[in-house]
């Protein structure tokens, strides 16, 4: 009964985060007298709470709850047909995994925030809200019923809306003549756009979950787990589509991705690391995995097709707009969308492989456990989720460090930081190589696993659905291009930020002395080491993660990825087609030690051959002219010109004359709800068709509803009497039919 003993820790963690929230928010009133005390108190409590949550996660990972714990239930006062309202907590391995991630990352970010929030305006409030945000996130993960899940999801939306006002509040405090009006509008847009997207998502999820709860007659997740939708394909399809759309909006899947890069850059950089590094996945993938693999059964084969295509598109679109972003925070926000796509690819593959059609084709019962390949694909998704948490939060925290030192995150103004801030730069480089999916760091391992799952997943085609083959090929094409573009994006970003000569002398003049303080350095180092370890020990990590699909999908045999810590290998048998020979089992093997040896031997040779104690320092070759760092280094928009040039807005297909301002292409007007012409550099713009479409659709919706309202409220008394009459008739009909 380990869970019962642990419940005091739940209460303690709850108390820490609540007290931290209260301390931050109330002491904000007395900020002048208390100084840093309020912030420090709130952050210390956040660290303590985070540590406790991580401890809880570790305990539940080792020993998952056998059954839910009911904290409180409200039965009286509700209509009898209404599903019971009760607060249940339940932590299986999936929840424990997310608890562990939330706890550890939130504690690390809190440690980092001690430095980042120092001397910042609104520091107490941010620290307090940070506590509440983390609290809502981990409570949402262990909530075991529809009402409380939705309530905590909504709490996260509300708290985060506050955090997105950060930049706007900063601008309000500055004298109005110093504020760039365009920036003001963009900062305002952040908290105007976020609730719209987020609530649209929450509404769709609510409908999906309520439909399920009504079908089950109970709002507890346990009832939903037991629910079988056999013979009700309409309901199952509706729930699937609603859940994918709703959680897709929350998670920024294409085409609902625009909000991610509009909203997040205007929140404080510390919380940015937590929200985009982790919470965006908690608020989308956690529930998506539950709904798809626990609540919905049987699974139709075409769901996977849809998810795979969305996944590929998300990956591609995310990285494309990461390349065209002008500042570091926006670029990283856009790039998070790409990673959501890669995770979704694994989920979609697992979904196809656990479909009832595939099971039937395998000659199994429709409800039999899916084949181990499905588990494999889900491990790939979870592995990438874990990796993305590590390297993306590392990159955000590096961004915060750069912002702390130089005062800007504008890619065009940075440059040459590697000479001045070696710690920040090395950790940034580690993050960049990891996120680009390069061996031997962690991004590579999960991308390799995802690809191997796609490769082995060709067995799906055997059941005779050509659309599955089409979606697999489309996914691989989009993922392949996205991987290539990611390398380009991070060469561009790293080159602009860290390498070369400083591009703006005034930025280098305003630098603070030395690298970041130890607390920031420690956080960055810890996350870099995590990135390295997740890459070097793929066998251990995958074998641990395999517990989740084993429990979720109720696989018969445990999934095994080999016995060695540094090697990831698996064999899965493939099913043969009638009239064909039995295919060999699919084998995949990723051994880190031979890889390291293969790279290491020539690297040592190269080092020995090229090592010199004395090196000469020389001038650059600039074609004979004097070196000008601002003008002579390649700019980001030029670097990526071959990628984005085809989306440049042009008037009637004509190229603007060289040297002339591109007037006709038009700038984004400040009043646009979603600005769809992105500024790359002076005179260079690129279109965002998705934003354009969403903008037009919302515009149409608003105009049409306005017109309808005008017509409906015509002002004529006869019309209103008519409405009364119609309402009366409807009420009568309802009353009669209800009997």
């Amino acid at each position, binding site marked *: 009964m380990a869970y019962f003993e642990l419940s005091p820790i739940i209460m303690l963690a709850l108390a820490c985060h609540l007290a931290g929230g209260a301390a931050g928010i109330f002491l904000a009133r007395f900020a002048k007298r208390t100084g840093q005390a309020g912030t420090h108190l709130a952050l210390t409590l956040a660290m303590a709470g985070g540590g406790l949550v991580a401890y809880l996660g570790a305990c539940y990972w080792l020993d998952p709850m056998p059954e839910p714990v009911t904290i409180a239930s409200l039965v009286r006062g509700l209509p009898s047909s209404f599903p019971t309202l009760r607060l249940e907590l339940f932590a299986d391995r999936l929840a424990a995994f997310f608890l562990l991630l939330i706890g550890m990352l939130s504690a690390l970010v809190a440690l980092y925030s001690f430095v980042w929030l120092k001397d910042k305006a609104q520091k107490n409030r941010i620290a307090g809200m940070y506590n509440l945000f983390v609290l809502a996130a981990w409570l949402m993960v262990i909530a075991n019923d529809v009402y409380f899940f939705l309530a905590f999801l909504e709490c996260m939306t509300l708290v985060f809306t506050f955090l997105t006002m950060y930049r706007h509040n900063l601008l309000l405090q500055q004298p109005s003549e110093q504020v760039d009006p365009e920036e003001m509008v963009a900062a305002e847009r952040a908290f105007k756009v976020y609730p719209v997207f987020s609530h649209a998502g929450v509404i769709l999820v609510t409908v999906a979950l309520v439909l399920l709860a009504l079908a089950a007659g109970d709002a507890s997740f346990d009832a939903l787990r037991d629910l079988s939708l056999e013979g009700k394909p309409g309901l199952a399809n509706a729930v699937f589509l609603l859940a994918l759309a709703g959680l897709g909006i929350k998670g920024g899947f294409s085409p609902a991705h625009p909000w991610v890069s509009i909203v997040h850059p205007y929140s404080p950089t510390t919380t940015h690391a937590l929200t985009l590094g982790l919470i965006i996945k908690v608020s989308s993938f956690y529930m998506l995995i539950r709904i798809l693999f626990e609540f919905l059964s049987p699974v139709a084969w075409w769901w996977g097709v849809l998810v795979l295509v969305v996944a590929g598109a998300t990956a591609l679109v995310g990285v494309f707009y990461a390349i065209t972003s002008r500042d570091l925070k926006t670029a990283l926000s856009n790039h998070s969308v790409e990673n959501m796509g890669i995770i979704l690819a694994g989920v979609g593959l697992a979904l196809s492989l656990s479909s009832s059609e595939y099971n039937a084709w395998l000659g199994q019962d429709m409800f039999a456990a899916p084949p181990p390949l499905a588990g494999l694909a889900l491990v790939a998704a979870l592995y990438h989720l874990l990796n993305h948490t590590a390297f993306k939060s590392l990159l955000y925290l590096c961004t915060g460090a750069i912002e702390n030192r130089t005062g800007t995150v504008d890619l065009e103004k940075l440059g040459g930081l590697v000479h001045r801030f070696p710690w920040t730069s090395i950790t940034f480089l580690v993050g960049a190589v990891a996120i680009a999916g390069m061996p031997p760091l962690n991004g590579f391992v999960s991308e390799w696993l995802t690809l191997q799952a796609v490769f082995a997943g060709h067995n799906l085609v055997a059941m005779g659905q050509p659309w599955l083959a089409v979606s697999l090929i489309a996914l691989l094409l989009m993922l392949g291009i996205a991987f290539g573009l990611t390398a380009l994006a*991070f060469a561009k970003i790293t080159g602009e930020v860290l390498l070369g000569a400083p591009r703006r002398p005034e930025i280098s003049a305003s630098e603070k002395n030395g690298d970041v303080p130890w607390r920031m350095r420690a956080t960055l180092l810890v996350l870099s080491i995590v990135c390295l370890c997740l890459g070097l020990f793929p066998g251990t990590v995958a074998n641990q993660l395999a517990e989740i699909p084993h429990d979720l999908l109720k696989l018969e045999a445990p999934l095994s990825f080999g016995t060695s810590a540094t090697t990831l290998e698996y064999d899965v048998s493939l099913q043969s087609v*009638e009239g064909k020979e039995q295919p060999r089992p699919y084998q995949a093997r990723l051994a880190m030690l031979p890889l390291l040896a293969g*790279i290491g031997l020539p690297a040592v040779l190269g080092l020995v051959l090229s090592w010199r104690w004395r090196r000469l320092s020389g001038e*650059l*070759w600039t074609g004979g002219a004097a070196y000008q760092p601002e003008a*002579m280094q*390649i700019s980001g928009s030029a670097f990526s010109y*071959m990628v984005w040039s085809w989306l440049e807005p042009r008037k009637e297909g004509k190229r603007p004359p060289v040297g002339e301002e591109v007037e006709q292409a038009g700038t984004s007007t400040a009043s646009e709800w979603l600005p769809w012409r992105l500024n790359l550099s002076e005179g260079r713009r690129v279109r965002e068709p998705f934003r354009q479409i969403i903008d037009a659709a919302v515009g149409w919706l608003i105009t049409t509803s306005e017109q309808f309202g005008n017509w409906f409220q015509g002002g004529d008394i006869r019309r209103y009497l008519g409405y009364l009459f119609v309402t009366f008739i409807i009420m009568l009909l309802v009353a009669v039919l209800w009997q």
Partner: protein
Amino acid sequence: MNAYNLSLLQGLVFMATGPLVVGTLRWVKARLQRRQGAVPLQTYRDLAKLLRKQPVIPQTASAVFLYAPVAIFACYAAPGFMAPVLALPREGPPGSGDLVILIALLALARLIMGLAGMDAGAPFGGLGSSRELFLNVLTEPTLLFVAYTLALTCSTTDLASVMAGCFREKIPAVYADPPMLLLGISLALVLLVEAGRLPVDNPTSHLELTMFGKAIHLEYGGPQLALLEWAEALRLTFLITLLLNLFAPYLLVSADYPLWLNALLALLFPAKLLLVTLALALWESLQAKMRLRAIVTPALTALVVAIIAVILAIAERYMLTG
């Protein structure tokens, strides 16, 4: 010979062979253009000369610039130790010769090269970085589709198993197998694009603006430049070896043979590559120079061919019966 010695041997032979391939290519091209041409061994002399020199590092450059050549060299030399180059091990390989890993290593080398080009802060280095990484965008999906075709026909992407267990068994039939043939064509096109062998890149020019990777080499000198040149030669050698070992897995070193035979076969390794090198030189000499963006055409052709190969492989495996 045990498996570890074998993989060490093939790595060393691979590294030693690289410059010879490039030297031969240059010599054949010179002869085709009716020039005298330097002897094929000239590349070794150049490397030795460069390795003796003192490096000159630009003032704006950092450690990234200094150590990038080592890392690039390691990435391009690593396939020699990991993939089956000289030998086809019968059982599970000691090395990690998965094709996807090798693709990632090629991409890693490109990424580091891109960073090195940006690091010096020079105007041409940045241009070169941009082009190199754009090439990577063009070739990476194609290589993934090549891996997918192999996964479909051989149920693995591990090169040793693919070559030993799948290709060698049906070697005459492979030449009549549409997906395999398309895969070969696609791989050959990727070789041209990836190794800078297209008439778009102009590595021997005196004009910086027409270069791809060579624009990054501009700031380098001495041992660093030697490593970069060597690494490029290894990239070309690896891609040629991959093509040859898939479609003509003959004259291979084996753990069963006595040592003298293995040594002989290892010495014969450069001779095997000669055929493809000659074809490459001939092809290069027949092409006219094209503008930069024309590189998209062969790259996309390779991609489309690879996709068709995948579709045919799927059809062959699951749809067509008999």
